[in-house]
C-alpha cells in the first residue's frame, strides 16, 4: 500500500494530474536531434524510451523532424512553443551534454580551443576502450546479462559505501551462519572465519535472542502478526490471503544487537565463546536493523554437514545495517555537558520534565519541582527580563538566550544559570506546546547572597502590600507563578483569536517582542489597582486583537487600545515602561488587606483569569471586593 500524501496538508502539493507539476514542455525532450538523418537510414534511433512516455508534443516534434531539414515552414498541428524554440532547446541540451563529456575525458582537457562535437565523441570512444582494457571482463561480451556496473563493484557500492552493512544468511532451524559478506569485518571487527558456520546466537545480545528466534521461526505466513496498513489494525486471522501477501509474508524487518570486537582480528576472541560463562560480560554490542527474506536453499550446497536427506533448508537472507553507535547526536541547541541539564516546561512555565542531573545543581529532586512554576525560583531581579524572554520564546522559532540569572536552590542559596530556551510548536496544530530549556551553570552563588536576598525580600514585602502577612516563600511564589500563567494565557488567547478570525484590522498587540510584562506599573499611578488594571488592560488588548496570531511583531500600539476606557490609562504602550518594578507597584485598593484569605482571593482571581474576553468596558466595572 502506498499512502498518498494527505490532501489536507498545509504544504503546497503540486497537482499530479495531467497538467503535471512541470509543464510537459519542461520535460527533457529526449528526441533525436532534429537535424539528423531521416527515418530511412537509422530507424531505431527514433525511439528514445523517454519519448514513448512523454507528451504527445514530443511525438509531434519527432514526426516533424523526420521530414524537415532546415526548412522552418512546417505544418504545425498543435504546439506549445514555436518549433524553433524546441529545436534550440534540443541543441542546447546536446551541447551541454557534450561539454560535460569533454570535462570528464582527460584527453579533452588540455585543449586550447573548445573541441567540436565530433572530436569529443571520438575521444569518448577512445576513452571507453581504454577503460575497458584495465577492467574485468564481466561486461566485455553480451553473453551474460551485462550491466553498467560489474557485480563486484555493485556489491562494494552497496555494502560498503551506501548501505554500510553486510549480508547475512542464517539457517532457520539452528541459526547457523551460512554466509556472511566480507563487509562485516569493517562493522563488527570479526573476520569471516570467526563467523561463518557459527551459531548466530553466540553473537546476539542475550536479551534479543528470543526476538531473533521468533523472526527465524515463522516460515509460514503468520497472519495474526501482521498489520494491515489500510486500517492500522492487525489483520484478521480469517481474512483471505491475497496473492501479494504470500511474498511479503516472508519479509522480515527487526532490530537486534550484535557483538562487536573493539580490536580487529584478535584471535583470542575466537576462543572466548560467549557460552563459556564469564561472570562479567564485557562485550560491546551495536544495534543493527536487519531486513530480508526467507528463502529455501538447497541444503547440499550450504550445509557442510551434508544432510542429503533434508530436501530444502529454510534460511533467512538479510541485509544488516548498523544504527549509529552510542546515543544519537544531540541537537545543537541542547548542551550535553555535565554541568548542564535540560528541563521542559509547559507554556506557562510549570516544569513538566527535569533531568536527574539537575539535582546536583539545584538541590531539589525532580519530583519536588515538577508542576511548580519556574518563576518561583527566579530571583526577583531577574523576573522582568525572564518574563520578557518567556514572551519572546513563545512567539519565536529561534532559540532565545537568557542573560545570567539566579535560580533558587533548595537550600535557599542561589546558583547562577544561563539558559537557552526553545519553544516547540506542534507541526500540525501550529500551537506552542512546551518550552525546552537547556541550562548551564555559570557559577555557584556564594553563601552571602542569602542575607542580601533576605533583605530584598523584606523590602519587597513592605512595598507590596498585596501580601502583607504571608511568609516570604509562599506569597512570592504564588505571585511569581502568576506571571507565567499570564504570559501563557496571552498566547492561548492569540490562538483562539486566530481560530475565531475576528475582523478587526488592528495589528496584534501581543505579538510584539518589545512588549513588556503586563504587570508593569505605569509611570502614572492611578487609583485603579495596578495589577487589576494590568489584567484588565491585557484583556482589553485581547478584545481588540486582530487575527494577527502570535508571530506578528508590532511595536506601535495604536490608539484603538487607548480608547478602551479608564483602564487605558494604564495601558502599556510599548517602550514606555522599561522594567518590572515591583517596588513601584501601587496597589492602593489592596492595601487594606488584613487577612490572608482576602489576599489569597486576589491571587486566585489572578490565576483563574478567564480567557474569554468581554467588551472593553467590562473591567471598568470590576469591583474589587475589598
Amino acid at each position: 500500500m502506498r499512502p498518498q500524501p494527505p490532501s489536507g496538508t498545509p504544504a503546497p502539493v503540486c497537482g499530479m494530474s495531467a497538467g503535471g507539476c512541470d509543464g510537459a514542455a519542461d520535460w527533457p525532450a529526449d528526441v533525436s536531434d532534429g537535424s539528423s538523418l531521416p527515418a530511412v537510414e537509422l530507424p531505431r534511433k527514433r525511439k528514445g524510451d523517454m519519448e514513448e512516455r512523454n507528451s504527445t508534443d514530443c511525438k509531434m516534434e519527432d514526426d516533424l523532424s523526420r521530414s524537415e531539414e532546415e526548412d522552418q515552414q512546417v505544418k504545425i498541428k498543435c504546439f506549445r512553443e514555436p518549433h524553433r524554440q524546441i529545436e534550440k532547446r534540443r541543441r542546447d541540451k546536446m551541447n551541454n551534454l557534450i561539454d560535460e563529456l569533454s570535462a570528464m575525458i582527460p584527453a579533452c582537457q588540455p585543449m586550447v580551443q573548445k573541441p567540436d562535437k565530433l572530436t569529443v565523441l571520438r575521444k569518448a570512444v577512445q576513452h571507453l576502450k581504454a577503460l575497458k582494457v584495465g577492467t574485468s571482463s564481466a561486461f566485455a561480451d553480451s553473453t551474460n546479462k551485462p550491466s553498467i556496473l560489474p557485480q563486484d563493484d555493485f556489491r562494494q557500492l552497496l555494502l560498503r559505501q551506501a548501505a554500510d552493512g553486510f549480508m547475512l544468511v542464517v539457517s532457520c532451524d539452528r541459526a547457523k551462519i551460512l554466509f556472511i559478506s566480507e563487509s562485516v569485518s569493517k562493522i563488527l571487527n570479526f573476520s569471516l572465519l570467526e563467523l561463518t558456520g557459527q551459531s548466530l546466537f553466540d553473537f546476539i545480545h542475550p536479551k534479543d535472542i528470543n526476538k531473533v528466534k521468533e523472526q527465524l521461526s515463522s516460515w509460514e505466513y503468520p497472519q495474526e502478526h501482521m498489520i494491515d496498513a489500510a486500517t492500522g489494525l492487525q489483520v484478521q486471522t480469517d481474512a483471505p490471503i491475497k496473492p501479494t501477501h504470500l511474498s511479503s509474508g516472508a519479509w522480515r524487518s527487526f532490530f537486534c544487537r550484535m557483538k562487536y570486537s573493539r580490536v580487529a582480528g584478535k584471535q583470542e576472541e575466537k576462543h572466548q565463546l560467549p557460552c563459556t560463562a564469564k561472570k562479567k560480560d564485557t562485550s560491546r554490542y551495536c544495534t543493527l536493523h536487519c531486513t530480508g527474506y526467507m528463502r529455501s536453499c538447497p541444503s547440499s550446497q550450504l550445509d557442510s554437514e551434508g544432510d542429503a536427506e533434508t530436501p530444502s533448508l529454510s534460511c533467512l537472507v538479510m541485509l544488516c545495517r548498523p544504527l549509529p553507535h552510542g546515543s544519537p547526536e544531540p541537537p545543537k541547541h541542547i548542551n550535553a555537558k555535565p554541568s548542564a541539564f535540560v528541563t521542559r516546561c509547559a507554556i506557562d512555565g510549570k516544569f513538566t520534565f527535569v533531568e536527574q542531573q539537575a539535582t546536583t545543581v539545584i538541590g531539589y529532586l525532580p519530583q519536588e519541582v515538577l508542576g511548580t512554576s519556574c518563576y518561583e525560583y527566579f530571583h526577583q531581579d531577574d523576573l522582568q527580563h525572564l518574563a520578557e524572554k518567556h514572551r519572546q520564546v513563545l512567539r519565536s522559532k529561534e532559540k532565545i538566550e537568557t542573560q545570567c540569572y539566579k535560580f533558587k536552590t533548595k537550600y535557599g542559596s542561589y546558583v547562577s544559570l544561563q539558559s537557552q530556551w526553545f519553544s516547540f510548536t506542534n507541526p500540525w496544530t501550529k500551537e506552542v506546546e512546551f518550552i525546552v530549556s537547556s541550562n548551564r551553570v555559570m557559577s555557584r552563588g556564594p553563601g552571602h547572597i542569602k542575607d542580601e536576598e533576605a533583605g530584598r525580600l523584606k523590602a519587597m514585602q513592605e512595598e507590596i502590600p498585596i501580601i502583607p502577612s504571608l511568609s516570604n516563600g509562599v506569597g512570592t511564589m504564588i505571585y511569581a507563578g502568576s506571571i507565567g500563567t499570564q504570559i501563557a494565557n496571552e498566547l492561548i488567547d492569540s490562538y483562539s483569536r486566530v481560530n475565531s478570525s475576528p475582523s478587526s484590522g488592528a495589528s496584534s498587540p501581543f505579538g510584539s517582542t518589545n512588549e513588556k510584562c503586563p504587570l508593569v506599573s505605569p509611570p502614572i499611578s492611578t487609583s485603579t489597582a495596578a495589577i487589576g488594571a494590568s489584567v484588565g488592560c491585557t484583556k482589553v488588548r485581547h478584545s481588540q486583537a486582530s487575527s494577527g496570531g502570535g508571530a506578528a511583531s508590532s511595536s506601535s500600539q495604536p490608539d484603538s487600545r487607548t480608547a478602551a476606557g479608564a483602564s487605558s490609562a494604564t495601558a502599556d504602550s510599548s517602550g514606555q515602561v522599561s522594567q518590572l518594578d515591583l517596588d513601584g507597584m501601587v496597589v492602593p485598593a489592596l492595601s487594606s488587606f488584613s487577612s490572608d484569605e482576602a489576599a489569597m482571593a486576589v491571587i486566585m482571581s489572578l490565576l483563574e483569569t478567564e480567557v474569554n474576553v468581554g467588551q472593553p468596558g467590562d473591567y471598568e466595572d470590576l469591583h474589587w471586593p475589598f
Partner: protein
Amino acid sequence: MTADKEKRRAISREAARRRRRVESEVFEDLSRLLPLQQSVRDHLDKPSVIRLTLSYIRMHTLLTGKTGTKAEASHKVKCGQVTDGQMVRHEFNGGCGEEEEKEKYDADASEETNMYLRILEGFLMVLSTEGDMIYLSENVSKYMGLTQAELMGHNIFEFSHPCDHEELRNNLRVTAVWSGEKRDFVMRIKSALTHRGRSANLKSATWKVLHCQGRSKVCVAPSSVSCLLLTCQPLPLSHTLLSTQTFTSQHSMDMRFTYCDQRMTLLLGYSTEELLGRSIYDLCHTRDTNCLTKNHFNLCFKSQSVSGRYRMLVRGGGYVWVESHSAVIPNAHSSKSRPGANQPLCILCVTYVLRCVCGLWFKATFTVSTHFIELYLSK
C-alpha cells in the same frame, strides 16, 4: 545566380548529410562500448547515449579513483575485486572446471546482486553534487516505473517533489575534504507505476515516498568527483511482522494518541485509557524533541517517516530506546459518509523497541510527572 545558389545549397546539404552520417557512426561506436543489453541499446537516442557514457565514466572514476581522506584509504576500492566473489564461489559452486566456473560465477554473481537488491527492498542511487543521477541500479524500474537507461544521467530535481528540493540541496552539499558523511532523509519522487504495478505515462505520475540513506564520497584523482551514494527504499507498513518487541499505535495528526495495542501496555506499562489524548511528546525524553519534531514534520508534509532512535519513558521508571516507522493513513474509524479526498487522516506508527529499559534512576521523576501532567491536563 539562382543556379549557383541552388548548387551551393545542394553542396552544403550534402556536406551536412555526410557530417550527420559520420556523427551517427560515432554514436553507434560509443553505444556499442556501453555494457548494455542489445535490446536496450537499440532504443537509445543520442542524448541518452551521452548520458549513459557520462554515467559510466563517472562510476568508473568513483570506483577506482583515489580519494582524499585517510578514512577512505583504509578500504581501497578496486575495480573487479573478487574477495566477496570468492566466498560466493566457495559457497555456491560445487567446484567445476575453470571456464565453467567462471561462467557459473558470473551467473551466481548476477543472482547474488539480484538477491542484494531484493533484500534491500529498494534501489541504489548515486547522485552528483548537482543532482545528476549518475547511477541507478536496474531494479529502479520496479519503484519508479522507468528503466535504468531512461533515468540515468538525468537530474533528480526533475523527478522529486518541489517542496523537497531544498532539503535535497542541503543533503547534496558535500564538503570537499570530509568524505563519508552520513545521509538520512525522506523524499517524494515521481513514480509512473499504477496501483497494479504497471508503467504508465509519466504525465499521470504519482508521488512515492522514499527513505534515502547513505553517505557522501569524494574522489580526488584522476578527476574530481563528489557524490552521494544512497539506498532508496519505500516505506511499506503493510504486513509488517509484529514481533514481541514491536507495537503499533495510532495518533491524530497532532500526535496525540488515539489508539495503541496491548503490546504497548506490556512493553511500556501504559494502558490505552491513560494514553488517549496525550501527546507523544509528553511520553518522550526532552533531549529527543528534535528527532520527534523532524519525524512529525515529515509525516505532515511527506506522509511517511522513519524516526531514528529516541527514548520513550516507561511508566513506573526508566526509558527505552525505540525507533518508529510511521505513515499517514485515512482514518478508518471515521464515518464513511465522506469518502475520498476529505477523509480525516491519522498517523499509524509501528514502533520497535531497540533496547531494554534503561535509566531506572528515572523512576521517581516520571511517576511524579505523570501525576502532575494529569493534574495539569485536567484543568
